[in-house]
């Protein structure tokens, strides 16, 4: 029977090609219904996805737009004249964020781009917005950095070695002289922690606007003095927590304000590093010696110690100049939470830890845990840090109805035992295993149902890095905000009040560690009680 059919088929295939019969038409169109079935399938799938997405969107009530881009800086007036204090690791980054890099740094980025197409540092630096700034003064107590800082300030065309330089900024041997100079309007402070307070106070006394690296102060007493000096002078003050510009934090704030997470009783923030650099064992410059470093000025308000290259370059390892993990890294984490939850100063702090891995003579701990209590908000904030493991634990805000994980991306998952989402979880609309909201910076819009593939790639920093060719450094945005606020007379996001809360909170953690007991904040009298 089948042989007959095959013969027939064969005859059809070999018969006169021009003779198109009914049978040919049917056989030509035989698979078209498959397309119909396909279209129906896609329609049903889309309908299901939309229902799911809409149900979650309605329930969560979050906006899906990116935060609006900041408008370009107003360059119509005179350039803002800036003085830079400190050109160490962070000082170089701040100068670059303002648009000024040392020519050798530009050379290095150019070479990097030539040998590696993925190296976008040069391209990004060239594309970085011009903030209308002129570096008129510099100060660094290490001769090599002092010279480099001045050359960076003169590199107005963002060129490499041999490029056309602008006028050289004036070099000051002492920060007080720089602060008093009539040729500057604003000062960027990137000195060690023990100098943040005195330098800010001196700048404020001279009516110079201040961008100061975190933490705001080294001692508790200075914290009140800095606040007083800044408020009385009316200068524009910005503390260097560039996390204020991270758009996923702004989305996190919205989620918390809208009650997406339900009651929140625990927030966990962490630091995990595992390199000598991450533990502040920074390289010692070959040109550094007592003849090239103004050691007395380095010591300043700190207890006297004989000249030490370790102490000069790795000052973060000693309480004599540093605020340890609390000031360097807890402050970033705390400021992120203060930014999104307005927690303010905690009622109490309790710290434990020790020098467990880096037994190199340092006095600050390399493992530290601090628990802050905010009883009025029914909230505990736990900070846990180690400098000898890179296991990433992230920032997690735990609510009764949902938990949120924060970083460059933001994801919110419903809690399996949530009251608010119980009905939708039961109906299968919400799956606690999958995010009910995820935000990926640079994506056109956030979505309730993000594909698994996108999440995997985004989580590993593989998405949207190069789209449109622009990735903006948050430090640049933070400094831009400061510059724009100086011009418009607005308050920057990490102003003196936020700075005061940051510094007091960090000091409470440090004092608790040093005294090995719980410390309290007397809000009425604004005093830390040890």
């Amino acid at each position: 029977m089948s042989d007959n059919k095959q013969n027939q088929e064969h005859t059809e295939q070999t018969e006169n090609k021009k003779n198109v019969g009914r049978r040919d038409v049917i056989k030509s169109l035989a698979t078209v219904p498959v397309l119909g079935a396909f279209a129906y399938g896609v329609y049903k799938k889309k309908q299901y996805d939309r229902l799911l997405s809409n149900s979650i969107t309605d329930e969560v009530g979050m906006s899906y737009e990116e935060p609006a881009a900041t408008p370009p800086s107003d360059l119509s007036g005179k350039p803002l004249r800036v003085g830079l204090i400190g050109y160490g690791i962070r000082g170089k980054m701040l100068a670059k964020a303002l648009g000024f890099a040392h020519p050798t740094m530009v050379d290095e980025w150019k070479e990097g781009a030539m040998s590696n197409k993925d190296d976008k540092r040069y391209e990004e630096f060239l594309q970085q917005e011009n903030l209308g700034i002129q570096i008129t003064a510099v100060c660094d107590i290490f001769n090599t950095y002092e010279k480099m800082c001045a050359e960076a300030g003169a590199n107005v065309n963002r060129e490499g070695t041999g490029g056309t330089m602008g006028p050289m900024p004036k070099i000051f041997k002492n920060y007080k002289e720089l602060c008093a100079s009539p040729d500057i309007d604003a000062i960027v402070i990137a000195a060690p922690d023990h100098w943040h307070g005195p330098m800010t106070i001196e700048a404020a006394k001279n009516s110079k606007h201040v961008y100061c690296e975190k933490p705001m102060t080294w001692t508790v007493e200075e914290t009140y003095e800095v606040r007083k000096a800044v408020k009385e002078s009316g200068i524009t003050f910005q503390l260097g927590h560039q996390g204020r510009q991270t758009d996923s934090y702004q989305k996190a704030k919205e989620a918390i304000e809208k009650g997406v997470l339900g009651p929140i009783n625990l927030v966990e923030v962490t630091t995990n590093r595992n390199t000598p650099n991450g533990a502040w064992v920074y390289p010692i410059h070959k040109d550094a010696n007592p003849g090239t470093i103004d050691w007395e000025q380095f010591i300043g308000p700190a207890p006297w110690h004989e000249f030490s290259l370790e102490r000069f370059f790795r000052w973060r390892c000693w309480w004599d100049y540093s605020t340890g993990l609390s000031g360097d890294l807890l402050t970033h984490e705390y400021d992120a939470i203060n930014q999104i939850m307005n927690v303010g100063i905690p009622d109490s702090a309790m710290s434990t830890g020790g020098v467990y891995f880096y037994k190199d003579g340092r006095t600050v701990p390399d493992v530290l845990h601090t628990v802050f209590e905010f009883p009025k908000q029914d909230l505990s904030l736990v900070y846990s840090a180690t400098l000898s493991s890179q296991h990433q634990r992230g920032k997690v805000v735990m609510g009764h109805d949902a938990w949120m994980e924060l970083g460059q991306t933001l994801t919110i998952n419903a809690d399996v035992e949530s009251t608010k989402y119980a009905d939708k979880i039961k109906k299968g609309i919400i799956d606690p295993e999958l995010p009910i909201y995820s935000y990926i910076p640079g994506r056109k819009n956030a979505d309730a149902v993000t594909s698994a593939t996108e999440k995997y790639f985004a989580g590993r920093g593989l998405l949207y890095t190069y789209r449109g060719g622009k990735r903006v450094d948050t430090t640049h945005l933070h400094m831009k905000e400061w510059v724009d606020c100086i011009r418009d007379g607005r308050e920057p996001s990490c102003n003196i009040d936020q700075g005061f809360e940051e510094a007091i909170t960090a000091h409470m953690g440090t004092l608790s560690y040093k005294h090995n007991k719980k410390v309290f904040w007397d809000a009425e009298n604004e005093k830390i009680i040890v």
Partner: protein
Amino acid sequence: MLNPNQKLSNAQLAALLILRVVIGWHFLYEGITKLLNPNWTSVGYLMDSKGFFSGFYHSLAASPKLLPVIDALNEWGLVLIGVALIMGLFTHWAIYGGMLLLAMYYFSHPPFIGLTYALPSEGSYLFIDKVVIEFFAMWVLSLFPTGKIIGFDRLLVKTK
């Protein structure tokens, strides 16, 4: 190529036809989901590339000019190949185009020893993965022009 004197049994023809249609369906749906997702881009996939040719794929991802072209070629390539395979129209071209795309996917994420990828795989593969299997299945299809028996290619041949 199918020798005109060779005969395919009904079962053979049915099996080949189903293979062609299901591969077409797979291509079409992969293309349609990408077209319907305004956020879709091949960047993450390209950046995740490892192995001998990863430099090539990374350079595609890093080029703001080439990337939209790659994205569009991929999306529309998948859709057109899918439709062509289901309909049996220009079947040969669709098969060769499909094999080219599959080869590109394979060499961007080769399942070689020592290479791991951001996106976890749903199975276990060594040298041979489902992309390779689909590639060879399409090679088989290219040797049996079923479009000329069941499909629009039949009309094209007849009206030439």
